[in-house]
């Protein structure tokens, strides 16, 4: 059974100038022990969706649909229950580890905090657990006494992961966990995340604009554009053989070094992601789509089966699958 199930989730920010539909009817599911990658650019709604999983959105956000964690609706939870679920059952690793840590408190205290708050350990036990956690993320135990500024970016991101692991959650949501890191440090952090998923059976939702990184870590991928999932399926199939033109563009944005096709030929999409308050009619991708048809400006295609456990929301996919 799936650990997490999103059923027709919509999120709208109500601001002074009107409603901003950030997420528009997203349904996804994540099996226990599996890793799902959510890809998209700024404004696609991917981070809003991640925050909604633990009800971390600001007050002006209205959330519709259902978010079932282990069968229990997160949106209907009482405050006390929600507090218990955060950290203990599901935790989040944010991007930009610089801002996630308190600069005037030692690393060890910060990792121990969720343990103490949730009464999962006494101070002595917490100290031992902190040492254990630091070791798990590849940092020496004495680092517990360091302040954030004494660590490098990669080390801080490891501390964030240690914090997320503190209460042994079953689900970790990682929002761009390696974006600000150097390639080699990024590789170290990704290897760590992969190990955690594989060895400890933790489920993972990882969010990034880099499809190649997601394909590397996750079993399945969902690609979001303008608040919707436009394609989902097994990672390597979506990455190598995308069925939605937007997914293809994302996959081509990071070239394979050594591939003669991309040599001296950077691939990009014209235009910019749409303003959620003024979405194009029909398929919201059509103004930037290299293969748009006339009907795309009026016809909004839903997700359509595109092979084994795959779906894509594109008129071309529908046409292909309909004609045998």
């Amino acid at each position, binding site marked *: 059974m799936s650990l997490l199930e999103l059923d027709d989730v919509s999120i709208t920010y109500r601001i002074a100038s009107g409603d901003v539909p950030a997420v528009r009817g997203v349904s996804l599911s994540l099996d226990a022990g599996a890793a799902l990658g959510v890809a998209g650019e700024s404004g696609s709604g991917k981070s809003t969706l991640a925050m909604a999983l633990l009800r971390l959105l600001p007050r002006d956000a209205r959330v519709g649909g259902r978010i079932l964690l282990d069968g229990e609706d997160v949106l209907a939870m009482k405050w006390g229950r929600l507090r218990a679920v955060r950290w203990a059952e599901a935790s989040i690793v944010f991007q930009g580890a610089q801002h996630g840590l308190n600069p005037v408190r030692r690393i060890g205290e910060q990792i121990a905090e969720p343990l103490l708050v949730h009464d999962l350990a006494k101070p002595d036990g917490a100290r031992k657990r902190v040492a254990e956690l630091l070791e798990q993320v590849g940092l020496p135990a004495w680092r517990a006494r360091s302040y954030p500024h004494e660590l490098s970016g990669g080390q801080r991101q490891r501390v964030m992961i240690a914090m997320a692991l503190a209460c042994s959650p079953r689900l970790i949501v990682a929002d761009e966990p390696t974006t600000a890191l150097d*390639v*080699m440090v990024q590789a170290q952090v990704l290897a760590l995340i992969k190990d955690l998923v594989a060895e400890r059976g933790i489920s993972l939702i990882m969010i990034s604009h880099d499809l190649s990184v997601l394909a590397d870590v996750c079993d399945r991928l969902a690609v979001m554009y303008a608040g919707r999932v436009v394609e989902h399926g097994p990672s390597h199939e979506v990455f190598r053989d995308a069925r939605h033109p937007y997914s293809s563009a994302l996959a081509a944005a990071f070239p394979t*070094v*050594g591939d003669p096709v991309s*040599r*001296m030929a*950077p691939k*990009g999409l014209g235009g910019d*992601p749409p303003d959620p308050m003024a979405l194009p009619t029909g398929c919201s991708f059509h103004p930037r789509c290299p293969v748009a048809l006339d009907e795309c400006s009026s016809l909004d295609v839903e997700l359509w089966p595109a092979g084994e456990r795959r779906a894509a929301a594109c008129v071309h996919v529908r046409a292909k699958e309909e004609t045998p």
Partner: protein
Amino acid sequence: MTETQPAADTAAATAPATRRALLEARDLRVEFPSRGRRARAVDGVNLAVGEGEIVALVGESGCGKTTLARTLLGLERPTSGEVRYDGAVLDHGSKALKAYRREVQLVLQDPTGSLNPRHTVYEAVAEGPRIHGLAGEREIVAEALARAGLRPPERFFLRYPHELSGGQRQRVVIAGALALNPKVLIADEPVASLDASVRGEILALMLKLRQDLGLSALVVTHDLGLAWNIADRVAVMYLGRIVESGPVEQVLTAPRHPYTQALMSVLPESPERVVLTGEPPDPTRIPGGCRFHARCQVLASGRAAEAGVDARCRSELLDVLPATPEAHVACHWARAVEPAPEGAGA
């Protein structure tokens, strides 16, 4: 969507020596005091950017690539060695620097940070021409915006940065650089803060500027894919030195230095990964021998010993690589196992 140059491959690989060096670093060293010690941020570098050439300077944070770029721009003074532009040593007098900066322009990483939020696009692009007292400001601004792909330019004159998308803001920054009609752009991570789909468009713009205006560029980045996308040559920097350089096709398809090999191996889709442990060491304590030896996977695995160079790796300094366009590597092991062709590919 973007222009392709199918023939560029072989041309760049076989005839790299034809370009005249426009911007050069010669045995450049830049040191800073750091907590009572000397940080050797740039520790002996030869580098040349030819006319109409795009060179990628690749390395991790802390390797000295940004200090090197700043020194080439005249923003830092070299401790020793020299920067040369168009054959002449860079003069750090204020008048000479002002003239130099018309020729060599900087494009920064984060367009949101490098644009004043209270200046319109017009003001942002007109700033350079005003400082240099150029006539025909309006035409200059319009042309620069159009060159940077913001068309029609008049439509953007009165917009503020917050009304633009990330890609458009980066185009404004590039237009600001183009307004002075420079010969060289030095771009520090020009696409790192941009969305994936916009990234290709900005890189394509840099190729187009080279094609239309003959612009040279030094692109400072940690992104090997970027180098593959637009650069003719690549220089890989580690702890203040260039450890490998040469034509992109050669260096990135058959890297010879273990550090370059490790960087390549952690790219997604690479078959076998060499994840180096730890972080680049501190420029105040550069190890003796080969500066990479403490993290070197070839030394650690015993392959350097097999080639009989392990003692030299630990004790013998390597020379500073020349700035010439052909491929160079600063590695005892790679030099020992060659000249077997492609010998370093293992």
